[in-house]
């Protein structure tokens, strides 16, 4: 894609959304947030203390939520913060406090097969890099405007349908609710001492 067209697409993008909606200093915030996310991810896989890992993961989650905002997906960002940072991470912290942490912080950090795991991860990374380098054409530089103001309504109409019609994902949505119910039951049964 030639740079001129690329610039034009970006320009079209910002104007179509309206002058007020365009995020400010986009590159700066992108690098800041992605730096935070990656740093958090690094700490998660290296810190000895599980609580520190959880805090690092929270940083990553919030940074990723902000990246969603930059991608004009505010509803996903809100769900991310509510469910992940407010719900799942509290659950994680709860469990960390229930199980032994003093011992975990004295133990070896990595398992017996860590060289194999690291090698696999490196291989995966090489795969990604080669894909990005060779398949650059697969990912055009364009960004098509999504109206931000009605994002929630549009997501809702895909999930629930509108005007009496089933949405594209209504059935999947119902299945997901069933999945959650089963998960709740499973978790309760698993943790109960006496059923």
């Amino acid at each position, binding site marked *: 894609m030639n740079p001129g067209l690329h610039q034009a697409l970006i320009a079209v993008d910002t104007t179509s959304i309206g002058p007020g909606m365009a995020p400010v200093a986009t*590159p700066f915030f992108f690098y800041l947030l992605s730096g935070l996310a990656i740093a958090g991810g690094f700490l998660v896989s290296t810190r000895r203390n599980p609580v520190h890992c959880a805090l690092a993961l929270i940083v990553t989650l919030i940074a990723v939520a902000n990246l969603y905002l930059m991608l004009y997906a505010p509803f996903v960002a809100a769900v991310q913060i509510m469910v992940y940072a407010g719900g799942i991470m509290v659950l994680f912290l709860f469990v960390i406090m229930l199980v032994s942490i003093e011992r975990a912080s004295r133990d070896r950090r990595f398992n017996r097969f860590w060289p*194999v795991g690291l090698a696999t991860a490196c291989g995966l990374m090489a795969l990604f890099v080669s894909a990005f380098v060779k398949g650059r054409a697969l990912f055009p530089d364009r960004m098509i405007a999504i109206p931000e103001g009605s994002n929630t309504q549009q997501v809702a109409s895909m999930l629930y349908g509108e005007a009496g019609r089933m949405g594209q994902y209504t059935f999947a949505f119902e299945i997901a609710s069933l999945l959650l119910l089963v998960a709740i039951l499973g978790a309760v*049964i698993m943790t109960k001492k006496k059923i």
Partner: protein
Amino acid sequence: MVPITTIHYLVVAAALFVLGVIGVLTRRNVVIVLMSIELILNAVNLNLVAFSRMWGRLDGQVFAIFIVVDAAAEAAVGLGILIAFFRNKDTINVDEIDLLKW
């Protein structure tokens, strides 16, 4: 300054994914392994949302929401199993969880 495009987000997501895989494959503590899985799911989510922006369709965002739901279910059940296991074996190290039955 280079404008931020889809590929930038994909690179971040790939980095998060690899970090998550490192965590899953090398850590001993099951809690941290589960956290690393969350990291992987987040990387996938970031990809989906970036693609949704790239194509101007919301399907990617809907998928991301489904994945968040999935992550919640996974965390609840996974941590439930973990607590049950800890109660019986007094350990949460993957090295020591090596029997199918006890």
